């Protein structure tokens, strides 16, 4: 940076601090002008931005705005529904027998050897401008053969002057599926897809020693480009949930040019990799990537035409959610995400209007939320005064207390163990847990399925009859006496272990060992004490805890699951025998095994949503409620706050690409920011005056004492 730049920056600083005295506390330097800018924050730097490897919410906040899989969740309709995104229509699904013959008519599951998903994509969709696609006058790629000197001069992707674009084709989707299979990319879903996509495993072995740049010339037997805008994925057997995977960023298109460009030696030393600089077709492109400070998304100038939905749920129109129906997306020009690790500055900036939305940390919860007499959450007066809006949403997740079913005391299918588990399920009062530790942000789980997922019901039929009674039209936890009675039936009268003649000792294994976790652990102890059981907390570090879980050395533990897609299969599979953690390394952490459950699950998982499936789901719920391999804990409830100028907001746990639908009223924001951020100079002036007075007095005192000494 030369001296002129410094001087100009100094002038800007002085002008900003001197002229716009209403907002000298503004953390933003850039002038917004007439553009619509959204200000967001992130608390954890993303690890991956490559859609093949990225698999966490904080990464999807960025890449879901940049990459476009063929399908997406409808923004407004409920229950969650898939719609085409880059696809021109929903996929054509064909069932085949083992001879590759198409099955027609009333097809039985056992006849289906393969399922074909034929996907047609829209023509005319362009990739964002990117150096990997830049061509020279001769039509050759401008930056595919960079010399050492050229690479030496480059610091960020923006240092490549030329950019180019090209049309999205079916080959780009197929190329990405090949990338998912490449062992060097280490996609987290590669092992799952080996079980489904035909030829995926063989392809993975075939290309294991090859560079990513060579993938283009290899073919995968189950994935085929049929035409410029059409491709086919063949999966083994029937797996209706596969379509949900097609709405996740894993199946976004990736131009082969990206791999050729980024694989050039030397670029990765400058952190210029596909994992950090995405190339997509979505509404936004990543203009600045500094995960230590901020990430900036800019509107993609090449974004294809996509319109705001014209249909939604009843009530959406009244809530103003259809005011922009039929208008071209996106509405926001620029999104600035700032890294904010601490909750105090994050909350203060939100209150000052410098963030447009905010979650609620526990230390600011009382400032924002108050509970009404009926238990409902509303905003406090200070929030209402600022016209802040509250939005709540029960997440498609479950947190539960699991029993290791391989354990001789709490596990197994004996009557005694089952009654012990049922008694504990009554005693561990998750209503209290939610109230104390989550500020009321959660819904007690009555079974495996969270609200919003097919099979859930909040009526009497939906309660866990082993833990709850239906009184006054709501579920009420059974009295502790009933739990004690179950303990007696289990052979532990007043919690006394007949073998030792002392209180039954159970072990709670956890990695939550910090000082902050102590109240929670004490609470768990107290819940077990209600039954006379002594709970010993075996705290350990995360690695050892995971090891215990893998080896089945735990007894009682707390675990959670966030659904990948809105289907009960993605939750019930956590209790499916062949997914047992100890035996098969699966996600069945408690190693629950029930022939009845497994049979019902196998029947349910491949069915379409209909009355019969609903009934099977209820049967599954009944089996697990009876066997009680889990204490069904709670489904977290997310509380979000939004300023009045931020609109078109509808909670959607499945769609990660929500930014394109939202809108900012920049005029209102500017006015409110000015109003809320007048600096207070008087205390500063008074402090300075006091300091000067003290200094003058000190000088005076010194002179007087010096004079006295001389005399």
């Amino acid at each position, binding site marked *: 940076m030369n001296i002129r730049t410094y001087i100009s920056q100094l002038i800007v600083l002085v002008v900003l601090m001197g002229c716009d005295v209403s907002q000298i506390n503004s953390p933003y330097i850039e002038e917004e002008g007439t553009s619509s800018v959204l200000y967001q924050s992130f608390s954890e730097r993303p690890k991956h931005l490559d859609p093949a490897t990225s698999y966490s919410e904080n990464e999807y906040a960025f890449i879901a705005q940049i990459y476009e899989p063929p399908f997406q969740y409808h923004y407004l309709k409920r229950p969650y529904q898939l719609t085409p995104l880059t696809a021109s229509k929903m996929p054509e699904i064909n069932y085949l027998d083992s001879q590759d013959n198409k099955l027609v008519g009333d097809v039985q599951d056992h006849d289906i050897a393969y399922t074909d998903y034929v996907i047609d994509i829209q023509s005319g969709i362009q990739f964002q401008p990117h150096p990997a696609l830049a061509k020279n006058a001769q039509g050759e790629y401008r930056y595919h053969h960079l010399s050492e000197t050229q690479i030496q001069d480059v610091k960020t992707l923006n240092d490549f002057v030329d950019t180019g674009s090209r049309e999205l084709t079916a080959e780009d989707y197929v190329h990405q599926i090949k990338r998912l299979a490449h062992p060097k990319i280490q996609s987290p879903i590669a092992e799952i897809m080996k079980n489904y996509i035909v030829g995926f495993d063989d392809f993975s072995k075939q290309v294991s020693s090859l560079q990513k740049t060579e993938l283009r010339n290899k073919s995968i037997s189950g994935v085929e480009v049929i035409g410029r805008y059409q491709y086919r994925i063949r999966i083994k057997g029937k797996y209706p949930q596969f379509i949900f995977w097609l709405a996740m960023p894993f199946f976004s298109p990736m131009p082969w040019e990206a791999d050729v460009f980024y694989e050039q030696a030397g670029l*990765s030393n400058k952190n210029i990799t596909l994992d950090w600089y995405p190339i997509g077709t979505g509404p936004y492109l990543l203009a600045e990537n500094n995960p230590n400070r901020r990430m900036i998304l800019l509107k993609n100038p090449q974004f294809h035409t996509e319109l705001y939905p014209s249909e939604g749920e009843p009530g959406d129109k009244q809530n103003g959610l259809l005011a922009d129906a039929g208008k071209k997306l996106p509405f926001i020009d620029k999104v600035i995400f700032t890294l904010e690790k601490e909750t105090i500055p994050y909350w203060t*900036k939100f209150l000052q209007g410098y963030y447009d939305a905010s979650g609620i940390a526990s230390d600011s919860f009382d400032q924002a939320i108050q509970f009404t007499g009926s238990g409902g959450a509303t905003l406090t007066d200070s929030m209402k005064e600022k016209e802040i809006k509250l939005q709540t949403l029960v997440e498609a997740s479950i947190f539960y207390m699991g029993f290791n079913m391989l354990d001789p005391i709490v596990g197994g299918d004996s009557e005694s163990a089952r009654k012990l588990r049922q008694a504990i399920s009554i005693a561990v009062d998750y209503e209290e847990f939610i109230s104390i530790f989550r500020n009321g942000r959660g819904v007690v789980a009555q079974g495996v399925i969270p609200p919003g997922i097919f099979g859930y019901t909040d009526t009497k039929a939906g309660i866990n009859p082993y833990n709850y009674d239906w009184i006054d039209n709501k579920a009420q936890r059974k009295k502790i006496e009933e739990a004690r009675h179950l303990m007696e039936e289990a052979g532990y009268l007043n919690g006394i272990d007949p073998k030792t003649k002392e209180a039954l000792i159970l072990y709670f294994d956890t990695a939550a060992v910090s000082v902050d976790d102590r109240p929670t652990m004490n609470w768990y102890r107290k819940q077990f004490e209600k039954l006379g059981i002594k709970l010993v907390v075996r705290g350990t570090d995360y690695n050892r805890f995971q090891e215990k879980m893998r080896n089945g050395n735990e007894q009682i533990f707390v675990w959670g699951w966030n659904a990948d897609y809105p289907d009960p299969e993605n939750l019930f599979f956590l209790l499916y025998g062949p997914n047992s953690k100890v035996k098969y390394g699966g996600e069945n952490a408690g190693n629950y095994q029930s022939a009845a459950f497994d049979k019902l699950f196998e029947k349910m998982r491949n069915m379409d949503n209909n009355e019969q499936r609903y009934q099977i789901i209820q049967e599954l719920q009944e089996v697990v409620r009876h066997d009680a391999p889990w204490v069904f804990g709670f489904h977290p409830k997310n509380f979000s706050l939004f300023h009045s100028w931020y609109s078109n907001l509808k909670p959607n746990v499945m769609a990660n690409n929500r930014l394109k639908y939202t809108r900012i009223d920049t005029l209102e924001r500017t006015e409110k920011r000015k109003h809320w951020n*007048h600096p207070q100079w008087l205390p500063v002036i008074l402090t300075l005056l006091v300091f000067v007075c003290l200094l003058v007095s000190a000088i005076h005192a010194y002179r007087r004492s010096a004079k006295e000494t001389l005399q």
Partner: protein
Amino acid sequence: MIQYIIRRFFYAFPLLLGVNILTFVLFFIVNSPDDMARMQLGQKHVTEQSIANWKQQHGYDRPLLWNPKASGEEKVTQTIFYQKSVGLFLFRFGVSDSGRNIGADIQERMWPSLALALPTLIVGLLVDVTFALMMVLFRGGTLEQAGIVLCVALMSISSLFYIIGGQFIVAKVLKLVPISGYDDGLIAIKFLILPVLIGVFSGVGSGVRWYRTLFLEEVEKDYVRTARAKGLSETQTLFRHVLRNALIPILTGVVVILPLLFMGSLIMESFFSIPGLGSYTIDAINSQDFAIVRAMVFLGSVLYVVGLLLTDISYTLVDPRVRLS
């Protein structure tokens, strides 16, 4: 002096090797390569095969310190320790386990750390020395007693309190500066005013007491008495003679920490969203990123050794009686 520096350089080599071995052993006592793979691959759908793939891709599929299956020198070279450590001595930090180039990250993050730490050090030093001199000037009086009480009170308060209190009063109530954030170039001043002020203020108590002790030690010496006998005023004595002579311990104390300023401050950077190196190591430990941990521990050791060397050299500069041999 050059001979001395070369000798110190060779002394540093086994020291750094020792630090490297210690870091390696401590890290792998707590984490195995399998644990590291699981941490990087996430919670969902992690299979043994994907763990094996990850280890192979990142070079953690070798033995830790000794490879019994290899032959000759490869018994040592074909180990995780050798493969991951040799580059450090050439300042090639390699790639983090999450795939980012560590050298590039350090280069990018050390400047914001320095932008915060250097002004805090300089302004803090000026303020501390000034107040310490004032206290010495009024020694034996009520002002000094009040100053000492104030210093003890300031020392007794946690730095976290200063940060939260400072953010609350200056940024939230008075709305004079942004509560957190950072930008490049001179614009950064706007964001650094508050953290620097808080950094200085939180160090005033201990700093003033320390410098006061140094000055009081000097004030009783014979040359000061001679200066007074010659008719110099108390201020002239303090600023011309006492301050100059007390500079030796002040300077050496400052020089030793100069190189470490690059390493940043975890709490300050975290609260003020300054994208420095402060949280780099802690984040790496939490995410079990051994590549970053070893790089940062190595860098910290090198900077500390450099700091000590600079201190020795600075002795010769401020005190002609000291000779390096």
